[in-house]
């Protein structure tokens, strides 16, 4: 069966991507599988300058999930382009760069750095930076800001498809998606993490030094499916489904509600060969269900 998918200017040999921040720069996983078998992978969020991230502790396990407040620690665009990208098998699999910045201008500059890079298949815009000028709420919560950031990236992205990654911490995710579309996004991805918190009753301390962090894992899958279903039902843009994927069934659930591809995140921590196995498992499940291609079931939810 042909698992390939093509949407929004991106062609993938199969619908399995890995989610930003859960797959390092890809290289960390080479002992556990062949990166070229994946549809692609999204690297850890990259900023203009290197960042050291938040103080420790930065992660906490929660029921069927986890919280993280890594704080976007990353090597910065320059080191990524010099030391990481050349070592990635980008001819055989899609390397997507996840962009992190705190202003539309900065986002534009960052996009400009990757626009001419042959090894980069697409740019994914992470709009979760708390916007200090606007009172600390994240970009991702304000449709006008999403549109502005998307437009800034799109302007400098050359012919790279621009994916805008949406936050579920909003009243109306369709409004956020529409804003991204208005800004020129080629593809939407959803969801980023839910804002959450964990506490240790014995030490009386928050389990994250940052107090709040992002919730991910199977616990959030129902929220992710709902968001992708809302987006795919309301907007003409292709959507990449993210949130709690831990099996081939989970991945096909996202396809059924309308996703063109999926990103596996937290599950990569439960076992480092997860994404590689997911490719095989989806093929097996699709065969069992008698699907000729993923197009045959995309959006095929019987409501």
């Amino acid at each position: 069966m042909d698992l390939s998918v093509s949407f929004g200017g991106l062609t993938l040999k199969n619908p399995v991507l890995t989610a930003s921040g859960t797959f390092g720069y890809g290289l960390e996983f080479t002992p556990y599988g062949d990166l070229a078998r994946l549809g692609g992978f999204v690297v850890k969020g990259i900023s203009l300058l290197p960042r050291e991230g938040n103080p420790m502790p930065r992660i906490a396990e929660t029921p069927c999930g986890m919280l993280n407040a890594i704080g976007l620690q990353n090597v910065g665009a320059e080191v990524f382009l010099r030391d990481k990208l050349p070592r990635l098998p980008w001819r055989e699999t899609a390397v997507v760069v996840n962009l992190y910045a705190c202003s539309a201008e900065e986002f534009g500059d960052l996009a400009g750095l990757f626009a001419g890079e042959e090894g980069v298949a697409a740019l994914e815009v992470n709009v979760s930076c708390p916007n200090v000028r606007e009172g600390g709420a994240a970009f991702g919560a304000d449709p006008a800001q999403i549109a502005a950031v998307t437009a800034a990236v799109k302007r400098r992205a050359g012919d790279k498809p621009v994916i805008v990654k949406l936050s579920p911490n909003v009243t109306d995710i369709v409004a956020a998606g529409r804003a991204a579309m208005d800004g020129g996004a080629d593809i939407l991805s959803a969801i980023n993490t839910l804002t959450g918190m964990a506490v240790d009753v014995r030490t009386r301390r928050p389990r994250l030094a940052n107090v709040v962090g992002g919730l991910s894992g199977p616990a959030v899958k129902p929220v992710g499916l709902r968001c992708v279903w809302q987006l795919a039902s309301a907007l003409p843009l292709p959507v990449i489904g993210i949130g709690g994927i831990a099996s081939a069934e989970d991945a096909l659930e996202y396809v059924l509600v309308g996703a063109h591809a999926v990103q596996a995140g937290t599950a990569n921590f439960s076992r480092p060969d997860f994404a590689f196995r997911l490719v095989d498992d989806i093929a097996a499940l699709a065969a069992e269900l008698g699907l000729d291609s993923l197009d045959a079931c995309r959006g095929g939810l019987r409501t």
Partner: protein
Amino acid sequence: MGAGVRLIVRGAKTLSERTMEHKTCTSLRIVENRPLGGGAQYLLSLENPGWGAGGKTWRPGQFVMLRPVSWGLELTWARPFSIAQVDEGGLRLVIRPAGRGTDRIAGLAPGDEVFLWGPLGTSFVTEPETPTLLLAGGVGLAPFWGYAARHPAPANLRLVLGHTIDLAAFPLDPFAPLAGAGRLHTFHQRTMADLDAFIALLERHIADHGRAANGLVLACGPGPFLRTVRRLCDAAGARCQVSLENRMACGIGACLGCVARDAAGRNVQSCTRGPVFWTRDLAEEF
């Protein structure tokens, strides 16, 4: 060997170099799960993971990530454990029940399946001719089992074990040669008041391995213990490696959840750049 190892781990590696490290992830069955000291710790034996020729491709101080299949989706992460030994009995780990995950691992029975990847991270340096002091805080004893067994000149080793639980909870057989030679010291810390005496004991032994002796101190145990050891070693001018026990999600450098602060003030993954660090490479507050 030590320096070479650090070079491989720290340098930019090609894919084939990485593959040569024989890291694997695999399903294994529990062979035996023996309670020690009435269940205060467990000696967990697993099928041999088959890490290449004679099992010699792992190095003491390295660890594995272990996740029982029975955890389903509830507990998201595997848990890190030092490799204690790999022998005819299989892969040996020493487990101290200390929370939701380790409590459930204590309940595993022969035949139960776990998912495991490793060997991971850096290892303790071996300098055959150097007087070497092994300092274990509680279950921090585990990596020294394999270390002592492999050391080419065990006469140069001395081990101090500080423990709060019953000594019967520790696998001491592997250290019989050291004990026989009077080079195994145990200290039972029952109350907070005992702490000073324990620190004094550490100080004495570290002094013997300080600048004058050009000795080596290797330590594994809880954070406060390691910070004390580091302070004493700095004072005595002893070269020192510590094995950090930071919380881990992936164990392979991808999540950035386990970082320690290095001497340059940078956050480095304790799972790949550690868990074993030279204290001189770590920030004061690591």
